[in-house]
């Protein structure tokens, strides 16, 4: 490839910023937005609390254009690499007030007593700002969902919740409304350029393609390159383990991978679809998926994390995987000119291992449209209900025939080196009547099926007991109502 552009463009507030990453640049492209911001004079309002997306003290808002409007996304700046700002407007706490006049969300936080030590406050304010812009009629549940990713150790949250309720008022114009169309137009102009960016520093080369075809070519040329999309998992290797990445292919700007649609008998979810978008799309269509994603990370994480990333990280827990398996999903895989599909069960081959070859990319997950005679539920058990990695997760889907189980798919996460189906239990349960004893029996067989580990999240015995009990819970949820 010859002379690809080596700079990114974004708006910082209203200031257009061009950052050049020419070979020999000292600052690597994977510099986090948090570190970039805090090095700017006068922009230390954004705080580092954990550098792993678990506390939200570093929350900033990215405005992305949707036609002439802007969509405001709260994200954890500690997990965002600078090139992800390309074509976005970056807003930090310093941008909220204007001419010394607090933004309404700041005023509400002040009045409610929602700020004590003040360290989490800028992040809370930014989450509230994004919420007030995107959902001015938010319910209590939706408010809590938007603030799950902001830990506060002082207030106990009650005054923050109060400030949030005051903040979600329809038709509350602010100074961002005035220039919305102009900002969108500027961003659309930046986004019009679709030539792969080649961003470099002394020790790093970072490619940002805009089409699948270009991405597949890069993948073939640089099979060792680290693939990222939202990077919410990969970024931790840099921020926590201090690993250095030498080659990166960033797939987050490939629009064709972000689509979610119905295609024949399937739902087609692009591998680059953001978890938040997947959650919203399926909330009513597949409630078990919507519910699972309600407890997946936080709003900030779901705004960047992708379904493809979650699947390809092949974590032993991988919240979405057991459910996708129970729904009989497929992985759609592409290399240059070739496409193949395999069952998700077969795609995950081991501990953090997949069937993806060095010239391939996961392009989509296909979920068969659930048939009305199948009953599906998903479960997540964690020490803390929200923003916690599952101790174990499970999904059960079955089809009844004359009061007996005609077919069943059961999958667990957190019980083995990889999320997987439970064939021993499935085979045992097929043909049995829909009764509590059947599922209790399934729970017993589960003990032969899995030998879970003990770790920081729980002991092995708990995983065994809870996994078995979830089958009983499933039965009680789906059993016909007694007289």
């Amino acid at each position, binding site marked *: 490839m010859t002379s690809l552009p080596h700079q990114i463009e974004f708006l910082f507030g209203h200031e257009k910023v061009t950052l050049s990453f020419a070979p020999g640049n000292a600052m690597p492209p994977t510099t986090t937005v948090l570190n970039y911001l805090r090095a700017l004079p006068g922009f230390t309002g954004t705080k580092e609390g954990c550098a792993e997306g678990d506390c939200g003290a570093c929350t900033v808002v990215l405005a992305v254009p949707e036609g002439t409007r802007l969509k405001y996304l709260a994200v954890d700046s500690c997990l965002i690499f600078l090139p992800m700002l390309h074509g976005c407007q970056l807003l930090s706490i*310093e941008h909220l007030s204007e001419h010394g006049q607090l933004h309404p969300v700041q005023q509400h936080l002040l009045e409610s007593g929602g700020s004590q030590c003040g360290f989490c406050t800028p992040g809370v304010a930014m989450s509230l700002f994004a919420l007030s812009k995107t959902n001015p009629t938010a319910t209590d549940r939706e408010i809590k969902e938007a603030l799950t990713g902001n830990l506060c*150790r002082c207030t106990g949250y009650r005054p923050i*919740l109060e400030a949030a309720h005051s903040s979600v008022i329809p038709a509350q114009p602010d100074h961002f409304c005035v220039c919305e169309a102009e900002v969108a137009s500027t961003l659309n102009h930046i986004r019009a350029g679709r030539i792969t960016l080649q961003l470099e520093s002394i020790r790093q080369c970072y490619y940002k393609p805009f089409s699948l075809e270009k991405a597949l070519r890069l993948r073939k040329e640089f099979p060792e390159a680290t693939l990222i999309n939202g990077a919410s998992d990969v970024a931790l290797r840099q921020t926590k383990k201090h690993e250095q990445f030498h080659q990166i292919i960033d797939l987050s700007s490939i629009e064709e991978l972000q689509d979610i649609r119905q295609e024949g008998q399937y739902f087609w979810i692009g591998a680059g679809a953001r978890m938040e978008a997947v959650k919203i799309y399926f909330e009513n269509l597949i409630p078990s998926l919507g519910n699972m994603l309600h407890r997946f990370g936080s709003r900030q994480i779901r705004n960047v994390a992708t379904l493809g990333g979650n699947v390809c990280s092949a974590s032993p827990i991988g919240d979405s995987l057991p459910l996708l398996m129970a729904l009989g999903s497929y992985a759609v895989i592409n290399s240059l000119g070739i496409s193949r599909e395999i069952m998700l069960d077969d795609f995950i081959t081991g501990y953090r291992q997949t069937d993806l070859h060095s010239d391939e990319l996961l392009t989509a997950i296909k979920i068969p449209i659930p048939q009305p005679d199948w009953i599906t539920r998903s479960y997540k058990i964690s020490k803390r209900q929200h923003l916690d990695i599952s101790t174990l997760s499970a999904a059960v889907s079955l089809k009844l025939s004359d009061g007996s189980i005609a077919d069943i798919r059961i999958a667990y996460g957190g019980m083995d080196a990889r999320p997987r189906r439970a064939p021993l239990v499935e085979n045992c349960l097929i043909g049995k009547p829909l009764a509590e004893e059947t599922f209790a029996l399934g729970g017993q067989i589960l003990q032969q099926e899995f030998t879970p580990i003990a770790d920081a999240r729980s002991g092995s015995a708990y995983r065994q007991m809870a996994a078995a009990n979830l089958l009983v819970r499933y039965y009680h949820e789906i059993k016909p109502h007694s007289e």
Partner: protein
Amino acid sequence: MNPRKPFTELSHSHVSGQSLFVDDLVLPHASLVGRVVYSKQAHALIREIGLTKALETPGVVCILTAADIPGTNNMGPVVHDEPCLARDEVNCIGQAIALIAANSFEAALNAEKKIILDLEPLEAITTLEAAIAKGLLIAPERKIESGDVETALAKGTQMIEGELATGAQEHWYLETQAALAVPGEGHEMKVFASSQNPSETQAIVAEVLGIDKNAVEVEVKRMGGAFGGKETQANHVAAWASLLANACGKAVSIRLCRDDDQIMTGKRHRFLSRYQAAFDSQGVIQAYSVELNADAGCATDLSLAILERAMLHAENAYYIPNVRITGRAYRTNLPSNTAFRGFGGPQGIAVIETVIDRIARTLHADPALIRQRNFYRDAPAHTTPYGAVIKHNHLAVLLNQLTQSSGYFSRRQSIAEFNQEHALIKRGIALTPVKFGISFTTSFLNQAGALVHIYNDGSLRVNHGGTEMGQGLHAKMQGIVCSELGLPPEKVLIDATNTSRVPNTSATAASSGSDLNGMALMDAIAKLKERLQPVAINLLNALEGFALKGPYSIQFADGQVFDARDRGHFVSFGDIARQAYLQQISLSATGYYRTPGIMFDRQTGKGNPFYYYAYGMAVAEVETDTLSGEYKVLRADILHDTGRSLNPKVDLGQVEGAFMQGIGWCTTEEIKWDTEGHLMTPSPDTYKIPTINELPEIFRVALLENQPNPGTVGQSKAVGEPPFMLALSVWLAIKDSISAVADHQYEPPFSLPATPEQVLYSITALKTQKKITIQ
């Protein structure tokens, strides 16, 4: 950018992102980044520290080890048993061995990787059980006794005994430990710290540098949360930064990464307590014997004071005629445990609340009634196990008001009905009280200073010895000054806490910040008012139409000064200040306060260690999924005693915040170490503090009204710690829901924290337990 303007409300700068924390300060030219290299082994001899390769790393300026410390190699605040840098031996994972100063964080990291640590492993004690078995006491055991326990236990109608484990807790202040050390002329060192105890930070820095305190200035603008975690252990990072700054002659900042902070710093002490109690058929406790065994970690730190407070709260709100409280702190190869909101109180109180809960289950009685029967009473006055007389106690009024406002008794009935109808979901409810002693139990610490400057334009800059960590101390202090001098908040700036302005201060701890510093400020203001009065009288007399004669009754209000008898004639505060200056009257005054009448004899375990007690009560209701052990808090009602609140908004914030932090300790905040002493929960990924979703679905918090506290600033009460312990209501409500699985016929095994895992184990165990029999 926003224009800079004065903040009328202190948290204005927070919500606008302009508040500066240590890591936000504009660094002096050519500042360096410091990094701490710590042990990855829990107990080992240091054979050699190989620095050659590391020193060659580009960007590295210097690397220090114990041998390079110019002063004393100690950071122990009370007992000098904690080296600043390990010399011959390491005693826990996370113990500092070397310090790196470099031009960048990356350079420091690169150097760290090249340091060769040759360690010879020794046996490591990583569980409290092992330390108890080996008798590894960190200090001789302590006792507080009253009555005749042996006889009363033998005579008791009924007896229970058992063991309770309460877990450690990580502070999880949002701002990790940080310090910036800036060398000055000669030996001088200025440290910008995030410390609850600037005077002690100053002392430790002076000690490791081998210089006098007068050469060390420590300044604390604010902390991003502390909760006790920055009472002594903020000294460490300040000492390390100062050593590097001293060696390099350049400013050095250190901010611990979250995981390093969690691995290196101490926690709330885990306890393993054993108890026996005898009680009568009404559930009135006749005798109580308890052993409180604390895991001190590898050094003393504040463990003995914490153990002492646990012992002084072992009976909580209950009068027990025959008591023996035994306290022991054990040494393990874990980071030295330290202060944490409640300071041992929660650990002591959890045991007696367990005892009451068990008595109620044994007698098939409502636990709230058993509590009521055992409450301290004023007339005839009860005395505590340590011989203090209980006066003005609010337990009865709290119980009355709270059971009514929360509908406790009718809800207990509805819950019983709900549990009859639901096999898999069970609900539980509990009411728990707290009585918390206010004062440092090390009596001499109960002193404070203040320094108030009035400038000749009528504006004030106010200094006091307390530090601001989010608890609203500065807001309360500003409120006191404003109301005493009748000034608007924008005229009263609360300065950063600084050892050069107010010396020899105590830690902002033990909930004492407002009590002590507020009184010291009152003292300073009284002096200033006395000086301003004659000036005011002169100016008033010069006004046309002012005809009053003495004695004058000079008042300060609305920015004006006037005689109470004639509101129509007044002088502005600014004019008085200007006139005082012209008359060569000092406009600056210091204030001082020491708490009267308190003492405690550690040898006899007797005395009057507390100036007063703060009281509170909570009712919590939970719902538990018996298949998974998961639960949620459906409702919590709190009534808390803050005397005549200095600032109700701040006090409500303290009550709610402490309660939620207590819920964390009681439920999801589980700390695990592996057998080698590695922290298995070193980040928020595995260590789970409450999120907004853990907020009780219904949360009603109120301050007890019409109960002023005589003898304190504004007749108020301290509030920082006491409400933490009210979260035990959630813990016991969970136990009540578990107990419902077997219709309250069996005693559920229970410990703290009650993670979903522990709850499910308890539910499972219940099914094989023996029925409670009445002896």
